[in-house]
């Protein structure tokens, strides 16, 4: 039973990271119907920025964290401006390919700059545990869970309560109509990319104590975030996080209770099952087919 709870908590912590990456997918998808295959790589880059600020320049953790988030938000806007905006409105496959290319580029360039070693960021949560009875919970895992909940709540409020959030939802419904209504669609899309890159950076920094940061971490985790996003229903913010947590728990349980090898494929088996049985996901809207 204790093992079970232990696995559950570490699964939830890992799942929160998946959830945060999936959140990035969902934000961009909601606003522009673009699926950003480079989301994991944005996370990796954010981790590297944070490592540069905290580990190499020796800044305070929180200052470095904020610096990385701001840098990555600007980088997200730049990436949107250079790669995505020129092809907005073209078939989705082109845009997917463009973001895959962007991911390739980021991975190789950050490998060239920071090398291919593993990096670790010293955080205030690195050491220390909470003991509840004989249950031992590490701070780093709890910090991921707490940060995910806070981020998720903030984003939920942002999308549902602010004018900018409403504008984003409107431009995701129908860009042309939103434009006619006076919404600056281009700027909205730009901001969405900034937010999504910032969320990815949070995921990267929070992940750093759990897994090391290296140039391929984005690919590995980014691909695990797809099952999370699909399970939650592409386009639903709470869905992304819930999906992420479920995938994290499933992976963790499969690693513990099932024979070797299941751990890595379990998320994808779940993904295929969801796509076949309930393609709109747990929280997705069911839309009627229009001709």
């Amino acid at each position, binding site marked *: 039973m204790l093992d079970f709870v232990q696995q559950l908590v570490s699964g939830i912590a890992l799942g929160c990271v998946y959830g945060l990456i999936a959140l990035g997918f969902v934000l961009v998808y909601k606003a522009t119907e673009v699926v950003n295959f480079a989301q994991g790589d944005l996370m990796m880059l954010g981790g590297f920025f944070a490592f540069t600020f905290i580990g190499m320049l020796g800044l305070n953790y929180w200052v470095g964290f904020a610096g990385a988030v701001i840098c990555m938000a600007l980088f997200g806007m730049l990436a949107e401006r250079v790669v995505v905006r020129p092809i907005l409105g073209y078939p989705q*496959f082109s845009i997917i390919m463009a973001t*895959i290319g962007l991911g*390739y*580029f980021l991975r190789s360039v950050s490998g060239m700059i920071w090398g291919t070693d593993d990096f670790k960021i010293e955080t205030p949560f690195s050491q220390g545990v909470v003991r509840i009875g004989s249950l031992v919970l590490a701070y780093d895992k709890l910090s991921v869970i707490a940060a995910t909940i806070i981020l998720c709540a903030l984003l939920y409020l942002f999308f549902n309560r602010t004018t900018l959030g409403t504008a984003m939802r409107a431009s995701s419904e129908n*860009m042309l109509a939103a434009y006619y209504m006076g919404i600056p669609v281009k700027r909205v899309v730009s901001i969405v990319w900034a937010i999504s890159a910032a969320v990815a950076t949070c995921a990267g920094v929070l992940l750093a104590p759990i897994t090391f940061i290296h140039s391929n971490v984005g690919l590995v985790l980014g691909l695990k975030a797809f099952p999370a996003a699909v399970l939650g229903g592409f386009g639903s913010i709470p869905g992304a996080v819930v999906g992420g947590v479920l995938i994290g728990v499933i992976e963790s349980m499969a690693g513990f209770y099932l024979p070797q090898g299941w751990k890595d494929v379990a998320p994808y088996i779940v*993904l295929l099952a969801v796509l076949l049985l309930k393609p709109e996901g747990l929280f997705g809207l069911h839309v009627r087919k229009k001709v």
Partner: protein
Amino acid sequence: MRFLFKTDYEDDIRLFPHSGYIYSYGLLLAVLLVAPYVLSSYLMSQLVFVCIYATVGVGLLILTGFTGQASLGHAAFLAIGAYTAAYLQQFNVPFPVYFLAAGLLTGVVGALVGFPALRLQGIYLVIATISFAFIVEEILARWESVTHGNEGMRVKTIQLFGTTVSRDGPTFYYLCLAVLVLTIVGTLNLLRSPTGRAFVAIRDSETAARSMGINVALYKVKSFAISAAITGFAGVLFAHKLSFISPEMFTLQLSIEFIIVILIGGTFSLHGAVLGAIFLVMIDPFLTYLKDDMPGVISGVAATLGAGTERAGHIQDAVAAFASANGLKGAIYGIIIVVFVLFEPLGLYGRWLKIKLFFQLFPLYKRATFKRQKIYVKSERNR
């Protein structure tokens, strides 16, 4: 400018619309046939890879280019073809038999993937095919009694009609070329048949295709099966060329390379698969050239421009360090994909058509002829 006067449908679907085609493709074939006697063994080996990649590209074009179903899982089909060959070879099954068996098995697997894929579209299909490829990769790594797991499998040389076909010899190249040419001719015939026209109709509008009486589900599954089978054939050749296969060769990276092939070449014509394969495979020799010769060339240029010997030496070292940097290939791939998607969406073959049309129409050519239409209104979510 040549005007083709067509009087009936048979004229319209001819494989060779006019005699110029026969001469130019005949010349190309002649050049390819004498290539082994002219080129170095390294370039020959690259040319074999071009044939294999182009075969996969043709398979992928049927599915992605002509039926409009994107797939990022073709490495898995290649793996199934390669492993079938390696497995059957252990029991002394003759080459023609396991070659066909590999294609057949991969085709069946492709159809099995095609059935669930019927419900999926766009991004969901891409994600589902990626997952399928992951699962296949994991199965290959774990099913040790058949695939020898991560240790990989050795693939013996081909025994064909009592002779041994070495993987580096010209005969193997001719074999790959023959498979490629047969695949292309077969696909061209397929595309001008009712099946091919149904594929294109489904790509252009599924709803319209259905209302014209096309059984969309049937043709999608067919497209998956044919595409997978062709990839399976290529997989057999791939296994023989490498002479050793292991699960980590058939990763997402390889699937992406196949997509790059058709993306660079152009997704609307079979020429694209071949041009894209040439482009992709030749990146490696280009990088080697960059590593070996470029530093010397650049420092030589710098020296003649007046930089001192020492400066030239520094420049040489810097260029060498850049050219042999670890991720250079990945970065080049990334830039190539983005540049082609942004600036040359019709690919290399599209560029060729544009140049051709420019000269045909000479002062009247307009850039807008090839302009794509942007759609901001239609949402893929409520399709």
